[in-house]
Every structure is written in C-alpha cells, then in structure tokens.
C-alpha cells in the first residue's frame, strides 16, 4: 500500500510539474558523486561534427532507398481509372445510385461522411478534442505553471493591445472578421447542399476568430469566449453527435421505424441528421482552432 501511495504521489507531482524527486535532500546525500565517463576520443563533439559528409551521404542514401521502395509499390498498383479495379465495387455504385434517396443530401460527400460513415467523423472529432486537451495540459497557465517574467510579458501585450494604434490590422479585422465568420456559418449550414461542410466551415470560423483576436487582443475575446464557453461547446457538441448517431443506429439497425424524415432534397431543412451533425463538427473545429491559437500565444483561452 505504501509503495502504491508513493507511486501515486510521484505521478501527481509529475503531472503538476513539481519537483519530480520526492525527498530530494535524502536523495542528494545518498547518491554518490558520479564518475566522469570518458566519452572523449571517438565520440567528442568535434569528431561528430567532422563526420558531416558521412551523415549527409547516409541521409541521402536512406531517402533514395525509401523512394525506391515507394516507387516499386506504386508500380504494382492497379491502373488509374480501370473499371475492374477493386476500388470500383458495388459500394460506390450504391452510393451514386441511391445516395440522395437514402441520405437526402445533394452533396454526396456530406452524405457519405456524415451518414454512411458517420462513425469515422465522430472519431475525427474526438481526435481533435484530444489534441486540444493535450495542448491545454502542456501550455495552460495555472498556479503550477507560472513565471513572473511571462506574467510581465502578458501584461505588456495587453497594454499594447489596448493602447497601440494599429490602424491597418484593427480596421481590417473589424471589416473582415464578421464577413469571414458569416461565410463560415454559410458553409456549415449549406454543408448538405453545396461543397463544404462542418470541417471546412469550422476552420473558416476559427480563422476569423484568430484574426479578431490578433487585432483586438485576447481581453476583448474573453468578453464572449472564455475557457468555460470553450469546454461547454466542445463537450456539448460531442455529446450531441454521439446521441444523434446512437439514435440512428438503434432505430435503423433494429428496424424500429422511428426514422428522421428526410425532407425534400435541396431544401435547407432536409436530409435528417446531417445538418445538426454538421453544426456540431463545425463548432468543435472552430473552438479547437481558436483554442490552439490562444493557448500558444497567452497560455489561456
């Protein structure tokens, strides 16, 4: 039990970024002075630097080897566009023939990724969420990850954001950011009718948010987008996606019969769950993009 507890303590200290060695004083007394190993001679820095030509040759040789392997594989691939290729099987015909009927989406790609292959898209959204969680874990500022120098720099940044005159950036941001965000919303909402969809529209909205934040500073962003909003939107969207798709799976797979009406293909309110799923994916992607930017600049959203 005691050992487990100390392991837990170690893990907690490591996650919090504190001193990894517990009872550091005892450890320093107990450890003996390390002998200086004689790395010299062959492995000295000068010798390694002197071998630059060899390393260059080796890197080129390995690259050529890999390129050769790849090209030989490409040589064995079936011819592009051949009708008897294994990729041209009945799945594609089914998509092309009854795609509109079954999904209700005019945009085949949206019908595929959000209806036939909705589980893949769910995994992708989760991957994005995990990526932003990792960045939060590494870069977010809290009481354990804090230095006065960075705080002073942040204060300086805020001061310049408020008081410096940057007319091109500020006027450009004011004029362009709403248009970019509006275009992103259009792309998301028309995901099942025209090219685009959740991911594209989400990145466009994220780019607009980044433009606004870089022009007006993070303090102004925090009036409507805080860490709390970020967490709520991400988690709520993932849960909504999960619930919608679970509903489809349970009712569809068991032939219960409570299907979502498909509507008339071409209307904005049609194609079942694709529109809400597009909105969910778009919101997650937009939050993730802006979250990356905010965490990289200030260490806080």
């Amino acid at each position: 039990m005691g050992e487990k507890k100390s392991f837990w303590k170690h893990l907690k200290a490591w996650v919090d970024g504190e001193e990894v060695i517990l009872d550091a004083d005892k450890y320093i007394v107990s450890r003996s002075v390390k002998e200086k190993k004689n790395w010299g001679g062959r492995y000295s820095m000068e010798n390694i630097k002197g071998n630059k030509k060899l390393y260059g040759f080796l890197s080129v040789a390995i690259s050529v080897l890999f390129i050769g392997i790849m090209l030989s594989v490409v040589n064995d691939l079936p011819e592009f566009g051949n009708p008897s290729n294994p990729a041209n099987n009945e799945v594609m015909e089914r998509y092309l023939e009854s795609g509109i009927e079954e999904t209700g989406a005019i945009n085949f790609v949206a019908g595929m990724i959000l209806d036939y292959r909705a589980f893949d898209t769910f995994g992708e959204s989760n991957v994005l969420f995990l990526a932003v969680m990792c960045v939060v874990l590494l870069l977010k500022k809290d009481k354990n990850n804090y230095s006065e120098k960075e705080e002073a720099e942040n204060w300086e940044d805020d001061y310049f954001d408020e008081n410096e005159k940057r007319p091109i950036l500020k006027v450009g941001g004011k004029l362009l950011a709403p248009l970019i965000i509006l275009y992103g919303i259009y792309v998301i909402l028309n995901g099942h009718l025209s090219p685009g969809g959740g991911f594209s529209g989400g990145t466009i909205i994220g780019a607009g948010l980044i433009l606004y934040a870089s022009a007006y500073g993070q303090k102004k962003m925090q009036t409507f987008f805080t860490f709390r909003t970020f967490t709520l939107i991400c988690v709520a969207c993932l849960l909504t996606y999960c619930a919608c798709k679970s509903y489809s799976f349970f009712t569809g797979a068991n032939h219960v019969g409570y299907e979502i009406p498909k509507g008339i293909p071409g209307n904005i309110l049609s194609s079942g769950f694709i529109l809400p799923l597009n909105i969910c994916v778009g919101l997650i992607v937009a939050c993730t993009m802006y979250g990356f930017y905010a965490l990289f600049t200030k260490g806080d959203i």
Partner: protein
Amino acid sequence: MSAGIQIILLVFLVACALAVSLTKNLFIAVIVFMGYSSIMAVIWLLLESPDLAITEAAVGAGVDSVLFFLTLKKVHYLKGTREG
C-alpha cells in the same frame, strides 16, 4: 489551356516543396509553405473537389502558418520580436 495551367501549377508545387526542404531560414520556409498550400488549393479546385480546396486554403494557408509562426516565436527564433 487548362492543361497548360495545370502543368505550370504542378511545376510551382514541386518547386515550393523543394524550396521548403532546402531553405535554411525557417521563417522563409513557413512562408513558402503557405504558397505551397495556396497552389494545392487551386489544384484541388481543378480536380473538381471544391470542399477540399476550401479546407486546404483555410487550414494549410491560414491556421497552420499562424501556428508555425507562434511556435517559432515560442522557441525564440524570430528576430525583431521581444522573444527573438
């Protein structure tokens, strides 16, 4: 006409890819990478996949480069900034 444009774009694409890997200056490498993404977006459009073109333009040329610049700033690479 279209084939000529495509050949020019592909030549630019290869040139950009080589330039990114050969340049010593990371700042220039990121800017050339932005150019690469823009060319790639046009090529996606010519290959009739406009949704990929939208995503490539927004992610490759927009958000990616911003993240690269921020990383360069974090590792004290950019000269002329406070961290540089």
